[in-house]
């Protein structure tokens, strides 16, 4: 429902790292939009690949899935698909509530 938060339970040991990690993901969405404007699909693919590889480790499995989708969209040269994924990532980042336990 609108307003509901997405609860993500994370390792307390990573409490210091997660805020910076999430901030980097916001930067990723900006970088993707820049790359799309330049039609640089390779850059989009790289960002997606990195997101795929790191999301789960920090406890954000959804980010790994988003990264996979970005990678696929870049390989398919599908800017619309990429645009939809970027919107999802931004909504996700806006909606998550990290619980350390």
């Amino acid at each position, binding site marked *: 429902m609108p307003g509901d938060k997405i609860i993500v339970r994370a390792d307390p040991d990573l409490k210091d790292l997660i805020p910076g990690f999430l901030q980097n993901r916001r930067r990723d969405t900006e970088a993707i939009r820049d790359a799309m404007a330049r039609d640089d699909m390779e850059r989009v693919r790289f960002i997606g690949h990195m997101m795929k590889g790191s*999301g789960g480790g920090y406890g954000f499995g959804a980010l790994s899935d988003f990264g996979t989708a970005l990678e696929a969209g870049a390989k398919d040269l599908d800017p619309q698909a990429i645009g939809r994924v970027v919107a999802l990532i931004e909504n996700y980042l806006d909606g998550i509530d990290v619980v350390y336990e």
Partner: protein
Amino acid sequence: MLAFLAWQDALDNEAKKFAYESVLLKDTVGRSVTVSDDVTNNIATLLEPMDGVDEEPFRVFVGSVLSRHAFIESVSYYPLVVQPQVLSLNESLDALRTASPDLPMDTGVPPLPNELDRFDFSAPVEISRGPDANLAPMHDLFSEPRFRDVLRTAIETNVAVPTPPTGMDVKGRDYFLLKTVFHQGGEDRMADYQHRQVKGLIAVLIDPERLFQSSLQGNLSVALYSESEGVSGRQQLFDKQPNSVLSQRGWAVASLAEEILTQFPHYSMKLVIGKQVHAGDIDKGLIMTAMVLGAGVSLLLFALARAKEHQARELRERNVEIGRQVLRQTKELAAARDQALDASRVKSEFLASMSHEIRTPLNAIIGMAELLAETRLTHDQRKYVDIFKKAGEALQTLVNDVLDLSKIEAHQLVLEHIAFDVRELVAEAVDLYVLKANEKGLQLVCRIDPDVPLLVNGDPARLRQVILNLVGNATKFTDRGEVIVRVRRCGATDRILFSVCDTGIGIPSDKLETVFASFTQVDSSTTRRYGGTGLGLSISKRLIELMHGEIWAESALGEGTTIAFSIKLDIARSFMGHEQLAQVAVRGRAVDLGLSQIAVVPSGDRETPAGGRQADKRASILLVEDNADNRVLIKAFLKDGPFQVEEAENGETAVNKFQLGAYGLVLMDVQMPVMDGHAATRAIRAWETEHARRPTPIIALTAHALKEDVEKSVEAGCTAHLTKPIRKTALLEAIQRYVM
């Protein structure tokens, strides 16, 4: 077939015989007709230079001709004269008769009519063979068109020409060879004739039968023909049929023939020889022999076939008999097998039954002793309980050993073949004796080489049993010093060498051979002082031998003993996933992080790791990961540990750093730019081999968890494989396992 071949051979023989017989005939007739022609030409040549017939030389020459050639009946010379010359010729003839009264001479012939008047056939010079020569009048002869034609041909050519048979002799076969005699220098026949250059005519009378001389064979048919141009054409001069009686020679089976042509300028002589081969002519010997042989061969073949058939029948019967025997023996074997199986089952049941029957009360004794020990007891009661508890435990050990040995000797013991962690197994087994070692003030050390594989296939329970036995013995027989358990790989093979080395009482050299024998201890005092059944090493030896390994002992009295064994343990191909890795528990043993060396000092606190952790290269970790967030994450996981982490963003950087640095562990991401993790691992392993370095543990970090991906990591040279997302516990477990 043989008879046919023999028949063909017989016919071939007849043909050869015919060829041989006709050779003589051909040769004789050929020479004879050639001589006839030559004589005719020679006499004409002789007469040319003569104005008339020079009687003496003519007579001498002809006489010798007649004496040498029986087939020449007579030689006559008919001059070409005009009427006035007839008288002159007769006078010459008279003179000749006077000179040679022995020579029979004809008295001449009346003149011939018409164009042939030029030859004076009335007064020839004629010399014949004998007084029996029966010569018809020549003018009558040459009145016939056949002969006149021949005469004309003789006049017009300068060659000898044959006449048809004259019919003048009894057989009617004699024929003339005619040849014109010219005045010397005359060449043109027609011109000579018209200009009267012809001087005369030679007529040589031939008996064709005598041309064959004595070469005529009774079994051959012979015919002689003259063939010339003109009206006379082909004339049969001689014909003779074979003289055998047909019925005596059987039916004709073959007909052989040959024709021979002797060619002269204006005519040819054709000889035809023939032979009928009759059945009676065939040499039956060979055919009979062939038939006999053929019959013999047929009989032989028949006999062989019968023998083969007999042999085959015997073979069949033998096979049936063998089949029956095999069946009988199979049944016997099956019965024996069943008996053996029954015996084995009885033995197994006995062992199982005994095992159960003995262990059950023993368990009860020991269990009750433990329960009793927990109750309130007097000092003496506690002492008694301790005693019978220990006795029960000792009896239990003895029973277990005896049952184990019985099982092994009865071939009832079957080893398992499953994957297990050999490092953990050894560590856990050693762990069980930490307390005892501590009580005795001993240092108990376990060293496992890094190249000992993680997962192997084998029987973990029995391997543990052996290690427990050896470590137990070492701990028991050592009062001071240390017990070191070592596990290492035997070179590049898949054999693992285990050794337990103590600084205990040692074994006399003369007893070393017997330590592995059943119920054997060094001496009776050993049993009294140290206890034991004397079965442990024997069982260990049997178990190692079942594992196709070998075990041996080295010792020096008072200095210590080393018992070592080597066994083949295949590397288990199925790799544990990260969840299983995470589940492998350290379980609180005294294992220092980054070390698999258990150091137990006599401080009484086994949970305290040995002090003074050394900062050495084994705590240095190379983290190879292209994702900066992941590098941060992993470093965060390791921050509480005694690790020094260096980073590399790709495989190439990792290989360079590895060669320059000294690391106890490499955490290798697989998917990276420039050089991926597998390639970097292969490069590192190659470098280690080249520089004789012991392999550094390399743990692959990858998002792929499929069996194939794990196997790829192993094949590249990785020691272990962790699947992303990496969990802290799994990472630490893996590090604890592989870093020394």
